[in-house]
């Protein structure tokens, strides 16, 4: 009696063990192609980057690199161009993210009303998103040109004499880069918020109407809270993108005038691929990553709800 039960249980144990092993092998086989790419092109560079940031890296003869501990980071903190790039990056974020959220929200709520041509409007507002940064930035560079640019031609035609050369101006270059960015990518946030608005159940509005709530109350008490997760997503994504801004400055102003539109990613790019300071540039990269994680964390603390998106 005892032996048979022992045998059968050990048999089934063997069976489940081999089934588990078979599943493990199949699971790994299906996962292997992606995991190989992930390991080689994402995970390994990340580790290697941390390592490089601790070296005075020799870009031509890597074996002659010397370990210098945290000196790259220390050097960075004493470098005025680093601080100016950090400042420009924050300035761009502060200009861009709130405008992006407000514009996309207004457009989404507007198109959600029963307007004629809603599909047409959606197409128009979303379409610049399929452009490359090269095209968007080039069009706006020319629109903003000092003599032949459409913006100045228009201003002169309404009687404003000698409008400035916008992209060569310390005061106006960054705000116009921000306008270009909003035009180019607001479609993404707009589509997200429009979908979120359409997901709010109609019965909530019917109930509010019965309670005699006005349109402002309905907006504050129903629409915005119901769209909370989508708004959080839009804010965080725009923060992450804006902190990484590169192409617009590279194309429209080359980081100028002075260093006023040189962002951190642009600073990193120059340090790495013009000056060949690979170790130092890697340190700048990790610092920006750290800033991103902190900012996302703060945002999550204030806006993120218990639910995940």
């Amino acid at each position, binding site marked *: 009696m005892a032996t048979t039960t022992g045998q059968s249980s050990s048999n089934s144990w063997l069976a489940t063990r081999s089934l*588990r092993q078979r599943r*493990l092998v*199949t*699971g*790994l086989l299906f*996962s292997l192609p*992606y*995991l190989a*790419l*992930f390991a*080689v*092109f*994402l*995970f*390994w*560079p*990340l580790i*290697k*980057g941390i390592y*490089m940031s601790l070296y005075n890296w020799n870009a031509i003869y890597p074996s002659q690199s010397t370990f210098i501990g945290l000196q790259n980071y220390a050097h960075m903190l004493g470098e005025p161009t680093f601080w100016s790039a950090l400042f420009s990056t924050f300035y761009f974020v502060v200009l861009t993210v709130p405008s992006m959220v407000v514009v996309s929200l207004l*457009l989404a709520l*507007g198109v959600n009303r029963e307007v004629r041509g809603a599909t047409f*409007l959606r*197409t*128009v507002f*979303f379409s*610049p998103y*399929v*452009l*490359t*940064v*090269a*095209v968007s930035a*080039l069009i706006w*560079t*020319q*629109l903003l*040109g000092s003599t*032949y640019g459409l913006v100045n*031609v228009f201003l002169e035609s309404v009687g404003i004499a000698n409008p400035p050369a916008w992209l060569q101006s310390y005061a106006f270059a960054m705000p116009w880069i921000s306008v270009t960015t909003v*035009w180019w990518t607001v479609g993404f946030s707009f*589509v*997200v918020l429009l*979908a979120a608005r359409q997901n709010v159940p109609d019965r909530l509005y019917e109930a509010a109407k019965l309670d005699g709530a006005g349109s402002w109350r309905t907006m504050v008490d129903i629409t915005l809270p119901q769209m909370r*997760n*989508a708004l959080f*997503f839009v804010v965080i994504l725009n923060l*992450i993108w804006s902190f*990484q801004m*590169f192409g617009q400055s590279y194309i429209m102003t080359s980081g100028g005038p002075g260093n006023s539109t040189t962002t951190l990613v642009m600073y*990193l790019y120059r340090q*790495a*691929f013009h000056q060949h300071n*690979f170790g130092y*540039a890697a340190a700048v*990269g*990790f610092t*920006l*990553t750290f800033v991103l994680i902190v900012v996302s964390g703060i945002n999550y603390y204030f806006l993120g709800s218990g639910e995940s*998106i």
Partner: protein
Amino acid sequence: MSTESQTENVRQNERSSSWLSNVSYRTALLYIALYGTAILFLVPYAYMVSTSLKTRSGALSTSFHWIPHPISLHWYAHMLIGGNVPHWVLNSLVISVGTTVLVLVVDSLIAFALTRIEWPGRRYVFGLIVASFMVPGFVNIIPLYTLITKFGLVNSDLAVILPFAAGPLGVFLLVQFFRDIPREMQEAARLDGFSTFRIYTRLVLPLSKSALSALGLFIFVWSWNQFLWPLIVFQDEGSYTLPIGLVTFQSTHAFNPAVNMTGAVITSVPLFVLFLLLQDRLVDAVAMQAGTK
């Protein structure tokens, strides 16, 4: 009595008509705001197309004309016949198609393994992939560049395709989608003698057509539009993609708006066509990312 009720009636009429006019006033404002913004959104396109059809002197004239006079296709001919632009178009196509196909294949395979096969450790693998969303693209460019140099892939399309396909977005989206396919269907297929691989090709993939096409379109657009990384690894003019070529072109033709805008039209037309044909799919792909779909 009757006059009183009459005045009451009149008052009510007045009130309702002022309410009505208030509503139509607000509707008019809404329309003006929406269509006004739409026109502002379209101005850059109109400028791009109009300028691309101008002659050099026409584009530099101080008086601006929306309809060029004379209309000239000179710059299109100049760019598309001979020169590097056809190479750039081809490179962009190879990279976008290659990336899209590779992403769809490897991401759907692992998403299938993570949702449809119960193997120990799959939660950790998925956790690691999701955590990699925290790694921004730029932080890896320096070590990646040394890696690509070591592999001898500088100027090669693979230098752009492979790192892109390592990104977590596709895996994440397909896992969300595959998760919702009812387990009973898989068990029924298993009883019919389907192997695991056939369940993947014959059951899960066909059921996920909408998600796969939305993701594919999004990846195509995104890889067509990449800028920073191709700028670094393509150092030879013949290996450029359209966006990179366009920007280097601009630096040598700074005073020729017409030729720049022609390049911009050539770069964006393929995507606009794709966008107008498959707009709903792309909207789905965006909404899927926010979890609102």
